[in-house]
């Protein structure tokens, strides 16, 4: 009987999980086993009713911020790496049709080679959602792939600037659905650009270049800020814009700190990964945990002209002076409870985060990993990572 009862129990559990039947009705189906089944089914019902606590949303967001910092260092993949992975995973496994974007890029590259530079030139003005936009992105990836380390940072910043132009164009055309991904790309490229500049030999960056980078990023902040004045722009889009502005401010601050000399406080602010909050309210991880003071971010507002004909946007006035935006206050008790939608990324910030990257080994095991911050230490122990 015991050989059969496990099967009967499993069937009964499935029936209960699917709903539409009560325990009593179920037991009537199995009169011989009902005495044994009854307490077991009652026990499973009791276990299913156990209410477990949810994680602290602040912890969840902070953990994502730590993870994002780590991820962003490794992103994005170069064009060739993406192509290689596509080949390895998609073509060889006959999942060609599941990668329309990549297929489009490959077709575009083929067309470029056949038609010469005309397509590339034509793609220059493409914006996200346009047919030729993948060509534009592919060309950028190629340029990054072949750029030297010294040129890489400048290229990233140049492409980040293009993203700002694209955001303006998208808003001008009312194509809001592409704005969020474009601002995310902007944040990513800006962060990578600044990271690359900081890693390059500082002697090879002339003061003129440094000033140009500073001015360029400051300009992005102002241009993006002009979008916030537009009444017709939905609030969700404005949130993305504020996120991008916050990321630009963080990058600018990072750049300026490096210009001022080595940073003694390597455990500087880590953004709390709550993309649903506006940047000005976005507390740092340290702030969320009540251990850090806020950082005032002096932002240079340069003289610029808006790059797009957004009619509703008032042209920024020429103010060639340094202004200090409102200081972010550290009030840990007011740290917003994030509604954990961490897929809208936070700007990567260099922190004193010792990270020992675990490397999965051939037998599916991984080496120990540590990811800790000043205020929180992730437990890291040798762990088996299964091979599915």
């Amino acid at each position, binding site marked *: 009987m*015991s050989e059969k009862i*496990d*099967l009967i*129990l*499993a069937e009964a*559990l499935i029936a209960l999980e699917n709903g539409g039947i009560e325990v009593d009705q179920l037991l009537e189906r199995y009169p011989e086993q009902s005495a044994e089944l009854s*307490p*077991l089914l009652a*026990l499973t019902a009791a276990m*299913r009713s*156990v*209410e*477990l*606590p*949810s*994680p602290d949303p602040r*912890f*969840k967001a902070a*953990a*994502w911020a730590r*993870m*994002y910092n*780590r*991820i*962003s260092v*490794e*992103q*994005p*993949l170069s064009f060739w790496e993406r192509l290689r*992975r*596509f080949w390895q*995973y998609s073509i060889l*496994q006959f*999942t060609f049709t*599941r990668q329309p974007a990549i297929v489009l890029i490959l077709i575009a590259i083929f067309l470029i080679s056949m038609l010469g530079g005309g397509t590339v030139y034509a793609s220059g003005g493409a914006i*996200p959602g346009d047919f030729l*936009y993948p060509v534009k992105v592919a060309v950028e990836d190629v340029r990054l792939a072949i750029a030297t380390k010294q040129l890489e940072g400048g290229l990233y910043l140049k492409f980040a600037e293009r993203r700002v132009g694209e955001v303006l164009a998208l808003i001008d055309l009312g194509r809001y659905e*592409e704005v*969020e*991904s474009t601002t995310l790309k902007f944040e*990513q490229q800006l962060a990578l650009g600044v990271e690359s500049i900081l890693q390059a030999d500082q002697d090879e960056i002339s003061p003129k270049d440094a000033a140009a980078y500073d001015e360029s990023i400051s300009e992005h902040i102002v241009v993006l800020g002009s979008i916030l004045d537009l009444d017709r722009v939905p609030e969700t889009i404005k949130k993305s814009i504020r996120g991008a502005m916050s990321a630009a401010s963080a990058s600018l601050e990072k750049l300026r700190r490096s210009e001022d000399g080595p940073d003694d406080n390597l455990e500087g602010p880590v953004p709390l990964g709550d993309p649903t909050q506006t940047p000005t309210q976005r507390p740092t991880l340290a702030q969320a945990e009540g251990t850090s003071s806020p950082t005032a971010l002096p932002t240079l507002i340069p003289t610029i002209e808006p790059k797009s004909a957004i009619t509703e946007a008032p042209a920024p006035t020429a103010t060639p002076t340094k202004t200090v935006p409102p200081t972010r206050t550290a009030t840990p008790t007011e740290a917003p409870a994030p509604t954990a*939608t961490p*897929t*809208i*990324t936070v700007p990567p910030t260099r922190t004193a985060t010792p990270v020992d*990257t*675990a490397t*999965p080994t051939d037998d599916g095991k*991984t080496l120990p*990993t540590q990811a800790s911050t000043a205020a929180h*230490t*992730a*437990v890291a*122990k*040798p*762990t*088996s*990572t*299964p091979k*599915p």
Partner: protein
Amino acid sequence: MINMEQLKDLPDNELLERLRLGDTAAFGCLYDRYFDPLYKYIFFRVSSKAEAEDLTEEVFLKTWEALHVPRAPMINFRAWLYRVAHNIVVDHYRASKKTDPLHQSSSFRETGESMEKIVEKKQTAEEIARAVAQLEPRFQQVITCRFISGLSHAETAEIMGLNINNLRVLQYRALRKLNSLLNKGDLSK
């Protein structure tokens, strides 16, 4: 091009495809989707909020490390994720030499019910948690996966590396043992 809302609605395998091509936002979606259920799974096993938080974070670090490098496609990401979580919990106990996690009475969530009901529920939850902690590891795993995390027979079998028939037998034995422990009422061992 796909926006964030559309991205959130994609199934796991689509997100994994995008992740392989370097789309960080896809990983963010997976994180968002699985952080809470994994936390609860781990919490039930370790009984400490702080430890559950740390271990859940570790699960995602391991997942990132495993996923962002080229690897064979995954058939069931959710099952794989729980398996990583299980291994991390096992290693955690191995490292800390704990064998009998005592569940904290204050840890189970209080709802808007009457105090009497809350106390009753808490007692039940704690009794169950203590009894589960006394089971052998494989019994603990099958009980947690099936009745705490609500995973299917097939997913639990995949996580535990068993075929479905063996899983059914294991489930029956685990429940019978748990029932016997609870009926004895002596969970202080």
